[in-house]
């Protein structure tokens, strides 16, 4: 029984790590990627009055950060229930 519980805890932890890694990949791509490394290339594209790289650096990444935390909180709450580790 205890063994069974342990593997469940491990599965929960792995699912958690996958979620976090996925989120951090997006986090890295919008800020360090679009906002810094590829900013100059993206600046060739204009969206309205914004050069795209500049937009990501000054506004876009912040909006994506916020969406990421919302997604993470939602997904973790689901995982908590799924693996029966949510707070009671």
């Amino acid at each position, binding site marked *: 029984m205890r063994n069974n519980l342990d593997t469940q805890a491990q599965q929960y932890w792995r699912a958690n790590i996958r979620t*976090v890694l996925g989120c951090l990949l997006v986090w890295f791509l919008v800020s360090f990627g679009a906002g810094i*490394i590829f900013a100059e290339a993206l600046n060739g594209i204009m969206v309205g009055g914004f050069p795209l790289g500049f937009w990501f650096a000054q506004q876009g990444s912040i909006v994506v950060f916020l969406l990421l935390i919302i997604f993470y909180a939602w997904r973790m709450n689901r995982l908590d229930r799924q693996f029966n580790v949510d707070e009671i």
Partner: protein
Amino acid sequence: MELQTLTYLVVGATFALYIGIAIWTRAATTGDFYVAGKGVHPIANGMATGADWMSAASFISMAGLIAFLGYGGSVYLMGWTGGYVLLAMLLAPYLRKYGKFTVPEFIGDRYYSDSARVVAVVCLIFISFVYVAGQMRGVGIVFSRFLEVSIEVGLVVGMGIVFIYAVLGGMKGITYTQVAQYVVLITAYIVPAIFISLQLTGNPVPPLGLGSSLVDTPGVSADGVYLLERLNAVVTELGFAAYTDGQKSVIDLFAITAALMVGTAGLPHVIVRFFTVPRVRDARSSAGWALFFIALLYLCAPAVGAMARYNLMDTLQVGAVGAPDGNLLYEERPAWMQRWEQTGLLKFEDKNGDGRIQYYNPTGMSDALEQQYGWAGNELTVDRDIMVLANPEIAGLPNWVIALVAAGGIAAALSTAAGLLLVISSSISHDLMKSTFARNITEKQELLAGRIAAGFAILIAGYLGYNPPGFVAEVVAFAFGLAASSLFPAIMMGIFAKRVNREGAIAGMLAGLIFTMGYIVYFKGIFIDPIGVNTPENWLLGISPEGIGFVGMLLNFALAFAISKMTAAPPREIQELVDYIRSPRGAKAAVDH
């Protein structure tokens, strides 16, 4: 009503509100004092975190920095918000589950070592005092500019207010005061931003206004040119770098952004806010709310920066560049310039003696052009910190908006100062006294010690605000670098790497700390004169002292893993502690610790 009276009224009313809240939410137990009894609603905690985090630097200085750095200012925008992603996913929920009072307490328990705990306390106190000195200075400046009292009087009033609610209310008092302060500061920031965006672009939403086209003004058609496009043209013509392009190298931008992000996630006064919510899931959602409330200001800041720069250029350059009557006559300068000249933050020197203000970048303009125009150098010095405070005046907004901005600046500075003073006092009373050097004190004595420590911390902060050590501006990089290179890796590995042990963690923290400190002192000189010349050619890998905390962090991680591999694994109960932290169930029970 006159501006002076109005400002007194608005600022006085906000102070009355803060003190009222402090009395209503007095702390009765150490739990109330350290973590507000762990009963704070996640939305309220999000607002409090926003006020706690957004200091005088965010409110007053950031938009000004962006205005003059353009794209280069993005490091602050991404760095100071991106840290919340790390905080939400890597630290906050687990530290909440752990369920105790302070950051050093976690480090000391997880690495089963009082030395680790003391190292963490030293980092925490250093980081917090560096910060608080800047806040108190900000309080003094806002007071002396808007209420026309001396800086000393301003400081004493500010210290008195913080004393009442930090000492009386502890974390509980601070939390609810910060909620009120958030509302004051965000209103004060957004209202002028909306007006200015409307005036320039006709769009009432500042972040969208930044990407909109300019509206026609009487007599001048803007031809539907975008604000940023026009701004780029205006500044490059005067020898400045294009607004939307970078001046810093890619590697430096990368390192500074990373250091600010990781540093943000590692700042003790921010982390400790997530100890105050009831459940683990609240810690996650609360980080989202915190970033939402912060983003309201941070999304407006780039618009405020660009629009302030545009307004400034537009005011000074009245005609074609180089035309004899192209520049503003000094005699005809607007009233806001005259007011800021009195503070010394705006200076004019007529170098070519034509009575007009030439504002340009001499190094970015060819000598031939300068000669042709008859210019003899830049004639206007503008302190970057005045942009936000002067904005409502530049845009000609009514007096109540100016009074509101004053109250907002004071709220931003006081809320951050209070949060910092609290982590200082709790690490002294809880980490140093109760748990290390005076284990026998009762809860009542511990609470009293916390209050006395808070009182002393305020006195020191006031002293530092009045006699700012010359390096205050310099050491902000220090605070972030230290948080990034010492505290963040230690906490993160404590949760995610079971195998990292006491030896590895202590060696990692010390190495990160000493390397980062050494590099900053080498180029910036703190207490001693700088040894190296602070230019890109001399930097390690082209990384400036502002970004070196990122390298310190990598060093910390690498060393901690290597040394942990070579030494004994952490004891069994520590591994169980890590398992306990990783699973949310049972967090509520931790309230009764």
